[in-house]
């Protein structure tokens, strides 16, 4: 997989920390692989919305990648609950279903962005840079042990 310039946190120049939420193990592994290529670190995984809420509180990630259609509790409800307790949460919805209604509902509940599956690494990288905004920086070549392009 293509390697990107590592994205780091502006405050301490450490790797950006991610929580990956998807009921598909395959999807989680695939996203984890992309995160690795961005120089990021997966600090937690969840297969449903309920687990995502507890994992968020436990790991306090910089970015959450959240599926929509999941058992027990769907992604949009999980976003609402997480943002209620943690208004600073940066959540990116990742779903194969890109209905306008779904996207609007997620954004209204506090999600920051949406990306449709199959996820293209270049698109996700740009979205994460955008969502991190001033809190994320691109590390210089070789910083943090990550390869540059």
């Amino acid at each position, binding site marked *: 997989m293509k390697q990107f310039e590592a994205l780091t946190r502006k405050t301490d120049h450490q790797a950006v920390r991610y929580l990956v939420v998807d009921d598909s*193990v395959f999807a989680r592994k695939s996203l984890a692989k992309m995160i690795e290529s961005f120089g990021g670190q997966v600090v937690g995984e969840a297969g449903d919305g309920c687990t995502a809420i507890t994992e968020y509180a436990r790991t306090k990630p910089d970015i959450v990648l959240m599926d929509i*259609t999941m058992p027990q509790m769907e992604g949009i409800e999980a976003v609402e609950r997480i943002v209620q307790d943690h208004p600073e949460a940066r959540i990116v919805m990742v779903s194969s279903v890109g209905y306008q209604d779904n996207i609007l509902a997620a954004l209204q509940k506090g999600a920051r962005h949406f990306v449709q599956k199959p996820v293209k690494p270049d698109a996700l990288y740009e979205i994460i840079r955008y969502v991190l905004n001033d809190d994320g920086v691109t590390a210089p070549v070789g910083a943090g042990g990550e390869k540059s392009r």
Partner: protein
Amino acid sequence: MRMDLIQPFIGSLDAVLAEMMNAPARIVDLTMEPEGYRRKGMAASVVFRGQIEGRVILDMDPGAAAQVASYLTGGDVNPTEPMVPETVCELANMVIGNAVTLLNDRGFQFKVFPPEILTQEQCEAAGQACEATILCFETTRGNVHLNISMQYHARRSRERSSVTVS
């Protein structure tokens, strides 16, 4: 079955396979099956309900699914590993999700349910309920079959679009 409703599924499968297998796919066969469907490999079904109701079965060779999993997760995946049915489910999820997004953009409302792996018996039972259109796509890593069965509820659409004048 209305071809305008099937077309988004064809386009979606084509696009998803090209992205996930990093290789082109082409349709080599199209059949109508009024009776039981015999699974060719590993099959996952996605059900949707609303103005259009039905189910789509994605059926692919476990070897091909293992290659997709290996390509995307960056490690060697054996066709017998649990990751293989997971891969088929996620591919089905993407194909159906992208197709119903296109149909939703055309004004059709429905809800999609999570994918499920089907046994041979479940496949046959699913095929007996109603007529299905089966598309066979050839890829460099084996054939992929898409079994589509759906009904368009015109009455529900009219009811939803009707306006009450008082």
